[in-house]
Each structure stands twice: as C-alpha cells, then as structure tokens.
C-alpha cells in the first residue's frame, strides 16, 4: 500500500486516456526535447545510414537512396521515461523490414540483437524482434514535415512500443549483434529493455 499524500487529489485523466497511459505516465500535448548533449548537424550531403552485420558486412544508403525506398507511415503514442506520453503522433520513414530485405540482397545476415549508433556518440540497444514486423522504422518525417534536428532530424529510429530513449535521435547505423549489449542510457542506470507497460524505467525494475 502506498503512502497517501495528504490533500492530494490530482487531475485524473479521462477513462479513454487512462487506458492509453502506461503506469506512471501523464499526457502532454507538447513535444519535450531530451538530449544528453549538443544537437549534431550533419549535412544531408554527408549523411548516410548503415546496417552492419556481425561479420562486418555493410549495407549503406545515402540520403537520396534512403528516400527512394518504399515509405511506411505510422500513427502512434510515444512514452518518455521522464513520465510524459504523447498520443497520436504521425511519422513517416522506411521500415526496418524494408531495410533488412535490401540488406539481405547485399548478403547481410540478421542477428538477434541490435545497437543503434548515432551522430554525437549516442547508442541504444534494441532486440531485432522489436524492430521487425512493422514495429520499427528509420523516421524522417514528423507530422508531415521534415523531422527537426532537436527531435532527431534528419532521421531517428522509431520504436514506439518501448520508452522513447530507444527511438534513437540522429541515427546513422544499426549494428547487428549476436549478444545483447547495453547502450548509452542502459549503461547509466536505465533498463536494458524499457517496456513502458511493465514500467521498466531503471536497471533492476522488473
């Protein structure tokens, strides 16, 4: 039984919202920015995206090549570990499924784990199964416009069923791995998997 805070009533969300809110989250209409350091600004002419398999084989797309691939659209709720959730956000990009098909054509083999590697040195680990079957994409359009730099533009990973730190901003590479490894926040006290519905915020959370 939790401690009652005297006189606290709070603002209960409507039932419909409440069902969409993972435990411990509240709704925000804003789009807060959380980044550990300065926002990188890589010119599109120098930008590319790479998938690297465990043997070091690479599949690489420059900006135009990535944009020429079939697009996918997703309307989804997002959940930040700092407690805010935002409902019904609209994204467009290239699904990881599509990228993996293209990578397989170039001789790359899948592996059970991935590390997203980003401009600025940020990393985060995501199991491959959490990125496939339509669950993950490299997103570059947000609400119909190019993704702003402070929100991860030109492109970020989008894996919205996990806490949003897994949706790595400024993503440049997806590194396939045989074994799971901890990324940036996962090495600094945050949960290795990060399921908001199980409230896996920090290391040691069930």
């Amino acid at each position, binding site marked *: 039984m*939790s401690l009652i805070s005297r006189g606290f009533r*709070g603002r209960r969300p409507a039932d419909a919202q409440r069902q969409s809110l993972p435990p411990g989250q509240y709704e925000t209409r804003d789009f*807060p920015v959380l980044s550990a350091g*300065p926002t990188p600004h890589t010119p599109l002419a120098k930008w590319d995206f790479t998938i690297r398999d465990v043997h070091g084989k690479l599949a690489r797309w420059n900006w135009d090549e990535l944009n020429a691939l079939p697009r996918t659209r997703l309307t989804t709720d997002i959940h930040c570990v700092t*407690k805010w959730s935002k409902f019904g956000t609209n994204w467009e990009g290239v699904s990881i499924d599509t990228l993996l098909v293209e990578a397989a054509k170039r001789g790359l083999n899948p592996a059970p784990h991935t590390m997203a590697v980003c401009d600025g040195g940020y990393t985060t680990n995501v199991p491959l199964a959490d990125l496939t079957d339509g669950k993950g994409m490299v997103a570059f359009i947000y609400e119909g416009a190019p993704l*702003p730099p402070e929100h991860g533009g030109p492109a970020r990973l989008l894996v919205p069923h996990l806490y949003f730190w897994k949706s790595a901003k400024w993503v440049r590479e997806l590194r396939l791995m045989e074994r799971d*490894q901890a*990324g940036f926040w996962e*090495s600094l006290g945050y949960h290795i998997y990060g399921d908001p519905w199980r409230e896996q915020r920090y*290391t040691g959370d069930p």
Partner: protein
Amino acid sequence: MTAPVAAPARRIEWRSATIAKVIEETSTVRTLILDVPGWPGHRAGQHVDVRLTAEDGYQTQRSYSIASAPEDARVALTIERLREGEVSSYLCGEVHEGDRFELRGPIGGYFVWDVSERGPLLLVAGGSGIVPLMAMLRHRAAALADTKARRALPARLLYSSRRWSDVIYRAELERLAAGDDDVLQVRHTITREPPPQWNGFHRRIDRAMLAEVSWPPAERPRIFICGPTPLVEFAATELSALGHDSALIKTERFGPTGAT
C-alpha cells in the same frame, strides 16, 4: 558508447520522504528539505522520481532535480510551480512541514559532476535549470574546504532569469562567490526587468556573452547547461561552435520546443 550487460542491479525502491522544512525561494519556486530514511546518497546533478497518491489510490509521478550536495544529510528538491502543474501546484501549495510523499532515486548517471573531475567547471542555467547546477556548486564548496583546493578547480556560472526577483538561490550564490576569492564567478543576465543601477547582462544569452564568460576551449572546461529547451539548444550549439569539445558539453532540458 556501449558496455556488456551487467548482472541485474537491485531495484531503486520507493522511499517515504517527510518534509522537514519549506523554503520559499521566489514567488513561484519553493525548496522542500526532506528526511528520507535509507537514502543511498547521490551525485550532484542527479534527480529523483516523486510519486503522489490520492486517498482513492490515484497516483502520479514526476521527476525533479536534487538541489542539495551529496554531503548534505537531507535531500533538497527545488520545485517551480507550473501553470496547471498537477504535481508542482500541490508541492508548491498545499504541503507543509511533516507532510509525506514517496520518492525513488537517485536517477541519471550522465549529467553529474564531482570534484574528482579535472578542468574548470562552466555552468549555464536558465530559470529553474539552476537546480542541478546548484547541487554541483554546493558540492564543490563542501568538498573543497580550503581556497587552495578551490583555486585548482575554478567554476563559473552564467545564469539567465527574467527578473531579479526570479533569481533562485540569489543570496546563497552571492555568499558562495564572495567567500571564494573570485575562483567562483557568478554572472547573471536579466532578460526582462533588471533592478535599478544594473550593470550585469540585460539580454538573452548570446554568443558574445558565452565567449566572455567561458574559458578558452583549450582549458577544456566541463560544461553543464540546464534550462528551457531553446536556451539549452542555443547555448550548447554556440559553445560547440566556439570550439568546445561536444563530449564535454552535457545538457538537460525542460519544456517543449519554442517555449521561453
């Protein structure tokens, strides 16, 4: 930066916090000094999660930066009342000494500083973004007892507030700087209404101000920036453009894009 997956650590448990003291910092900002039995200690810059529970069992959580130094026996949270803030309006309104709520922490292992880090310390704050930076200054003062030790670790704070009356910890900052032979320099910028005879900065943080306040990049200052998103975004980009290593610039932001 990647690391092998470590053995499962112990869960960060919810603890009961009792308000020992309330300090009204400004008209919208309040510090709660808390007794937290079993508190495991923290590093300057870390935060906690606060959980409030209503009588019918409804709960909500928020994150707040820790304002106190690791050396302090009690945990201090400094909280700004936000318009329509579900939790901040309660913590900045209803509560008084002896009231209790739950918290867990400390949380966050990146936006942290301690005196074992070499290099001068450059802090840039906007509004209540001062809070985790104040923990660093308090830690510096508590951990480095004599002037000689402090001289080896100089610190500068650039602190942007709307009005002079909005400056949080104003007297304590003056005291810390005065007792430190200029080894700690505190520079205020007041963006709206400066006090009479004001000779400090009177504008939003810009590149010239950052260049004036910061050390040359070759000195490799450790830089911490905390405040509203546009301020942090601007200061981090400009300091990086002035030649400071991005890896030494650590940021923490609050509020949406475009907020002031």
